């Protein structure tokens, strides 16, 4: 069963994995599709890494969250943002633009995680500064492989900016 605890009106936090680390990795998932949220949680639960997954369902709250503005003043800053392109309230392009043009937010790594495999979306996302672009696969096993590959690359190979040095 999933383990959920509310940290804000529109966010859910979930700690997954079996390996304990001094500072668990925090992933901010900006996604409104409950089925996709379930699949991502499930894949992370089966991962060997300890991941604190924070879930935000719309673009407005995503920006409040990473700026640590109310009601997310106590939120844990993410090590990686997974951003779906199809989210309500404030669209993902505007969210990505705000992150990548704000000197205080620009160092947050953003991986686009979307069903869109359209060339203009891919080109546009990289032009706007996304760090990587992944299309959501079809099928449970492939979904799991993709999420765990994202985790393995970003959290075992990559040097992430420290939360205090942004």
């Amino acid at each position: 069963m999933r383990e959920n605890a509310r940290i804000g009106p529109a966010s859910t936090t979930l700690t997954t994995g079996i390996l304990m680390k001094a500072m668990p990795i925090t992933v901010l998932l900006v996604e409104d599709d409950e089925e996709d949220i379930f699949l991502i949680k499930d894949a992370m639960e089966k991962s060997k890494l300890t991941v604190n997954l924070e879930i935000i369902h719309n673009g407005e709250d995503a920006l409040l969250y990473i700026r640590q503005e109310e009601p997310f003043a106590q939120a844990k800053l993410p090590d990686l943002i997974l951003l779906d392109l199809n989210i309500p309230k404030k669209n993902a392009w505007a969210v990505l633009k705000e992150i990548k043009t704000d000197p205080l937010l620009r160092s947050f790594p953003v991986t686009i995680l979307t069903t869109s495999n359209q060339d203009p979306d891919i080109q546009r996302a990289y032009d706007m500064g996304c760090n990587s672009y992944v299309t959501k696969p079809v099928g449970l096993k492939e979904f799991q492989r993709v999420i765990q590959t994202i985790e393995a690359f970003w959290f075992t190979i990559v040097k992430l900016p420290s939360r205090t040095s942004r």
Partner: protein
Amino acid sequence: MVLRTRELVIIDDDDEDILVLQESLANTGLDFHLTIIHKGCEAVRYFEQLSHNSLEPNPDLIILDLQLPDLNGIDLLRTIRNDPALIRIPIIAYTGLDDGKHIASCYKAGINCCIKKPTTIQDATNLANSINDFWFKTLRLPSDYQQSHSTHNGTSEQNVGLLPKTMPRGVVN
């Protein structure tokens, strides 16, 4: 995923490091053509040529040593990311520094990701496997749609890119 020869560029002044990474990547089974640049001034010239030659396809990935003796890697990154022709080229930077501010400044300058330079064969093997699994088997890359293919002498055969290289960064329609 797109099955084709991948165009990789390594900018590094250490021949041994290049050889280890090159062999580690080859051991993953990745089909790639590697361009090696040893000096900062050569890197600057390479990017100038790439910027001015719209028929030359962008590489799939650049691996950049940020600590070349004759180059400020952060300045080079900023130059690349302010050039509409180069803005979308994926760049992995490697650095031996653990300084959090330095790493944050790499991300602010527009690096796709920063990695620790491998110091052992095992590190290089892990890195190469991860680059292959994530970068070439999982990610969608801007170069996947250039429909262009470089020969092993580095010359471009064709470029029928679907979008111009001049889409400015930060523009939201």
